[in-house]
């Protein structure tokens, strides 16, 4: 039941509806099995390398938990302990690690295209855990898994992705998969953080979020990084929050069943207020729980003996 002839999971851009549904339905059955306390040990005897060139807490722990729950073992290295700083090329780093004989590599890197490069030079499956602002496919899948779990389907639902779209791999993975699954996707953020030609992907660019919030079924709130204001993308956090911060006040006309997602880590009081992040519409911790399940599904489909 491999989801493609591809050996790796690099991004969702190339995924059609069928391939997306294969993973999502596999995740649903794994979640049910897990609820029934039935465990699959499909990664028994396999070792997965989690190679994080960029700091991460939840994604790395989520992957490592998924690997362990499937009976596999993981070895993790992060940039701080790597030999990258010693001047070794990425090619050599990856080739040396590969020579130790891992069954798959989960990789995060600040540059878009690094997983693609590793995929080209290695024979083992490569799972993209976030490359620059290109894609974060497991996050996209867990977001949609959570949306489907909450509302049955994303088809014809309205999804607003809010914040720094330009620098967001979460936004791109969400957009590709949501569009394939028939959702209506809206993006909003300061004009400087809306990437060129984004409308050509099939999304609607929103300038005033107060106009559209009442129609939304889901709002995926992206993290705003402080350093963006230093680079002149917007003047101050205060001004950002005034226009795009998700406050209780802004949600007064929202649908009662609106779900609010956030990939974390949250900047409370900046892109989202605590009252909203902890409020009745939030599914943020469901995302985290589902993250492990969705990553189990990905690993199982890519690595389990068939």
């Amino acid at each position, binding site marked *: 039941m491999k989801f493609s002839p591809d050996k790796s999971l690099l991004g969702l851009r190339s995924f059609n509806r069928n391939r997306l549904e294969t993973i999502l339905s596999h995740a649903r059955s794994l979640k049910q099995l897990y609820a029934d306390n039935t465990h699959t040990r499909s990664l028994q005897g396999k070792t997965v390398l989690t190679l994080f060139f960029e700091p991460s807490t939840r994604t790395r722990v989520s992957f490592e938990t998924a690997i362990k729950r499937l009976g596999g073992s993981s070895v993790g290295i992060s940039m701080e302990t790597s030999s990258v700083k010693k001047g070794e090329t990425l090619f050599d780093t990856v080739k040396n690690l590969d020579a130790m004989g891992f069954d798959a590599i989960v990789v995060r890197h600040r*540059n*878009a295209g690094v997983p693609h490069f590793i995929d080209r030079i290695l024979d083992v499956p490569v799972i993209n855990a976030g*490359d620059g602002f290109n894609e974060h496919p497991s996050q996209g899948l867990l977001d949609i898994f959570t949306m489907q779990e909450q509302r049955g389907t994303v088809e014809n639902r309205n999804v607003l992705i809010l914040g720094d779209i330009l620098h967001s791999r979460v936004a*791109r993975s969400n957009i590709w998969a949501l569009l394939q699954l028939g959702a209506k996707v809206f993006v909003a953020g300061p004009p400087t953080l809306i990437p*060129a030609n984004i409308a050509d992907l099939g999304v609607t660019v929103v300038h005033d979020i107060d106009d559209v919030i009442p129609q939304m079924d889901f709002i995926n709130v992206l993290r705003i990084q402080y350093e963006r204001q230093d680079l002149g993308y917007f003047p101050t956090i205060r001004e950002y929050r005034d226009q795009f911060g998700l406050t209780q006040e802004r949600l007064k006309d929202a649908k009662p069943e609106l779900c609010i997602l956030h990939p974390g880590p949250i900047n409370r009081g900046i892109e989202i207020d605590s009252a909203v992040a902890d409020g009745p519409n939030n599914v943020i911790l469901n995302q985290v729980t589902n993250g492990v399940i969705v990553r189990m599904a990905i690993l199982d489909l890519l690595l389990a003996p068939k």
Partner: protein
Amino acid sequence: MITETIAVINGRLVDPVRGTEEVTNLLINSNGIVTGMGYLPDDDDDTSTVIDVKGRFIIPNITDSHCSLREPGHEDKETFLSASDAAVAGGITALIATPDTHPIVDTPEMVSFIHARRRAAGIVPIYPMGALSKGINGLELAELRLMHEAGAVGFTDGNSLEHTGLMRHALQYSADLDRPIIVTPDDPLLSQNGVMNEGYYSTILGLRGIPAESEELRISRDIELVERFGGVVHFFPVSTAQSVELVRRAKVRGLAITCGTAPHYLYFDESAVDGYLTHFKVTPPLRSAADRQALIEGIKDGTIDTIASHHQPHTIDGKRTDFVEADPGISGIDTLVCTTLTKLVRDEGLSISQVSRLISSNPLAIYRIKRPGIALMKRPSFTVIDMKNEFTLESSQFKSKGLNSPFIGRQFTGKSLMTVIEGRIRFIDPILKPSSVIDPEHTPR
């Protein structure tokens, strides 16, 4: 090496300046001097070698006018010798070298060093450009006049000067030297850390974009400076439609502005970056399909004056990494001639003389380099080119140390079969079998 008198017969001699072609014969004596044109030697002439190039074109003085030769400083990437081998095998008879070596060519001593080094190696002529500012620091003018006297053919810091005031002074100061300032237009504060063209593809690939405006604004600025303060500017390479339009209008205004581009901008657009293959990482970046088409239009109407390889050879490590980290640039000396002729003559239907101008007479005119044409009593430099057969470009054919080329594996025509420099055969393809027998049936008298 053939040192006796040779007769190159039945070639279609292209005159890029006059735009003509004629079938003729060339007699070149043992001193490399043309002693006869158009007629066949009598039986009692001392011709000892006859090379029949029937159906092939002879183009004089093909020059690659923008090469980073890496020597001195990065001999692991290229040397004068390897670049020269690539040039002659690729049909190029002279190279114009950028000053971005280590040390930088920013003094008359360095200019003289390159001339001496080239003469000692006995290789293809190399014409150095000098740096515009000391150490390419963008703050103080280098010794332009002394470098000019030592033989620098133009001045460049590579990217356009950040400091508008210094650019003004450079133009004023160099105006009476009558040598071009070569500008690769880019505003680093606009292009930031971009690695590809800004647009749909940068958005879907999650790569930082370089807007077309970062090139066009600098072209606009420097055109205005030339109009106000004089001087001569050659923009290389231009990559966008608006850049071509700006130069077109500057030429209408009669300004001393020229521009050139490189073959890869005529073949590929930004969509080539999809897949993150590092051979497609170049600066300026591959632009949109419409920009690519505008460059071809600019060549057709004469706005674009030159095509040069923008040769930037790298070791394997420079490209064997991810797209963001990879070194930008293409190794292009080996492929300048065949890629240019294939695209513009075979695909776009331009005449071979019009295309020849872009790689021979125009760069020589822009850099004020005087080289003899194919004429009696001169030592000629020319290339014999086959436009009939197609070949697949293999990396094993490269003589450059840099194998960073997106053209490898593609089909081309316009193969160079013989390269003659200053009357000496420097390269000859085995397909041209020199013989001592002339068949009068196939020879015009």
